[in-house]
């Protein structure tokens, strides 16, 4: 890592205190804040934001769960309590544009907050990164370090089917000059990792197999050495699946922003 460079993570409160407004709010999400593995994704994305010089801010300790898992599990009261409180905070800071690395936060903020009084332009970090690449603000150094690697992308339901974002993460990966291989069930037919709808927070119902194992078997059958994801829950489920298959030595799971950060040497 570059030691001479200092990455900054300004909060909305800091910005407001100094009378500034960020271009974009980075909604970190609970997994991005607390999950050790996904914190590395948050950090990778923040480094990219710093690197390209985007004026961004986070809510920091003022951020709270969007309420997505509660809503999907059936607890509408809790969801709306969370949503209303978050909307008060977001509107209080006059937030206009939000980027997030979590498809569940993305879907909830984008599609479900407007009816409760929170209307923002919400984009997923795959779309944001795609924009940076298209504008030439992010360039992956020639062939390094991805030349000859095989990457397969796992569609997350709340990015893909839920919001029809299929191309952005693929275009981001295409910039890596790696060998992109597709699984059999992709895009609109993509198979869930097994985490959505509150499944992540409980044991699965009895069955023949865990959903993440089914999906990882499909990913491994492509011969990929890297499984790229764009969702914190997919990240855990796919990583666990790879471990279940005893392939953690040869197959790695990365978020697309981590791969871009690696390509930038960040």
């Amino acid at each position, binding site marked *: 890592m570059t030691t001479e460079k200092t990455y900054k993570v300004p909060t909305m409160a800091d910005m407001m205190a100094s009378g500034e407004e960020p271009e974009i709010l980075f909604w970190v999400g609970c997994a991005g804040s607390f999950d050790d593995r996904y914190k590395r994704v948050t950090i990778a994305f923040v480094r990219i934001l710093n690197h390209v010089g985007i004026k961004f801010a986070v809510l*920091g300790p003022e951020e709270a769960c969007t309420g997505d898992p509660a809503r999907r599990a059936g607890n509408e009261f809790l969801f709306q309590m969370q949503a209303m409180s978050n909307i008060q905070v977001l509107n209080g800071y006059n937030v206009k544009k939000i980027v997030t690395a979590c498809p569940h936060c993305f879907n909830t903020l984008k599609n479900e907050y407007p009816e409760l009084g929170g209307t923002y332009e919400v984009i997923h970090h795959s779309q944001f990164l795609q924009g940076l690449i298209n504008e030439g603000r992010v360039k992956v150094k020639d062939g390094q370090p991805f030349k000859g690697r095989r990457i397969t992308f796992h569609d997350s339901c709340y990015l893909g089917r839920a919001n029809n974002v299929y191309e952005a993460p693929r275009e981001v990966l295409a910039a890596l000059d790696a060998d992109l291989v597709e699984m059999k069930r992709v895009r609109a037919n993509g198979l869930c990792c097994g985490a959505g709808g509150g499944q992540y927070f*409980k044991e699965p119902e009895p*069955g023949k197999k865990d959903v993440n194992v089914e*999906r990882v078997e499909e990913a491994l059958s492509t011969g990929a050495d890297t499984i790229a994801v764009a969702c914190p829950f997919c990240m855990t489920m796919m990583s666990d699946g790879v471990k279940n298959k005893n392939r953690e030595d040869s197959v790695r799971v990365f978020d697309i922003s981590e791969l871009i950060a690696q390509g930038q040497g960040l």
Partner: protein
Amino acid sequence: MEIIQQVVFVAVLAATVWYIAKRVRLITRAINLGRPENRSDHPDERLKTMLLVAFGQKKMFTNLLVGVMHFVIYAGFLIVNIEVLEIILDGVLGTHRLFAPYITPIYPILIDVFELLAVGVLTVCVIFLCRRFIAKVPRFQQERHREMTRWPRTDAAIILTAEILLMIAFLTWNASDSVLRDRGVGHYAELKGIVPDFLISQFLKPLFSGFNDTGLMVYERTAWWFHILGILSFAVYVTYSKHLHIALGFPNVYFSDLQPKGEMQNMPEITKEVQLALGLPVTTEVGGSQTNDNGEQPPAEIGRFGAKDVQDLKWINLMNAYSCTECGRCTSACPANITGKKLSPRKIMMDTRDRLEEIQQGWKANGYDYKDDKSLLNDYITAEELNACTTCQACVNACPININPLDIILQLRRYRVMEESDAPASWNAMFSNIENNMAPWKFSPSDRFNWADQVNE
């Protein structure tokens, strides 16, 4: 003789129309058990969706071969039934091929097209029977899917066989009719020189070479009656069958969801409670100005949260259930079902319709006010099924006519959690974490921003 045929025909036709009207009223009443919801917004977008997905069968072409085969049955059956118009008029007026003298140049072309399509329908129906019962396509097998009990499998076999028989009747009727015309028997001679042989049935004429004139007339009349009675019976049967999709598929797609698949429907009655709890100004008008199909205001009182029974679901959910043809594409795409869990989106739809049928039986026996003590939740759909859903929307995406099983699952979940407080223990833990720690895990909210310390490591 002629007049007896006419009288019988008119009587049968009237009885069929009366009975179907009765069935339509009953099914409409059942669908209207659901909660009102305005689905007449965005008519342009809805019309476009209906043209693409219902008329154009867009989603059926996900599997190209099956899509083409289904299209042959769909187009074939639809167009062949134009001929039914002539058959019905012939039956009522006691005429024979009424249109032929009036549209002489195009009449044989029309019948040729109908015959070609009839062969198409017949062929595809045979292939579909083979797929179900010989090739044993997994989504139709009871060993793999417990909802595929005897009745759904029989229903499919009846439909496909009936279509095959109807097409055979149509083709052999044309053939026997052609032979009678050739021989110049009775009134059949009137169309001699006006109506030629037809594209397909001309090759079936040798079948009838051994028939004497009387035998041939008997066959011609039998085939004609079998064909039209078959179609009328089919129309009645369809109202009891999964095959109702041939009618309801169109409105079902028209009224289907327009919002992104990931968007869960808001509960305005809860918004009000939450606004009061947080000391915010109340912005939502519960019940609002929404009216149901009959233009009636919904009851002002708040019902239960979520759905326990079909009455708590929306009318579109119930129309979905009546439109479902049990093809199982949803279930084949469901990650929970693929990995052996009990959840099957198709079963959710079949259970919803079965529950509605059960309520109708209650109405028939005890009047429309009758209420039994059963419910969709628990008596039909279990918590184990509901809890297994990942809300991945693969079922919603897979349905060729935009049925949404997920919407029903989520409404039932809402009832279980908010009315019965019967969530799995680990979900309750997740709820309390969100409530107390602002995250689904037990971390201190004040540690939320600690990750930033590692940015420069």
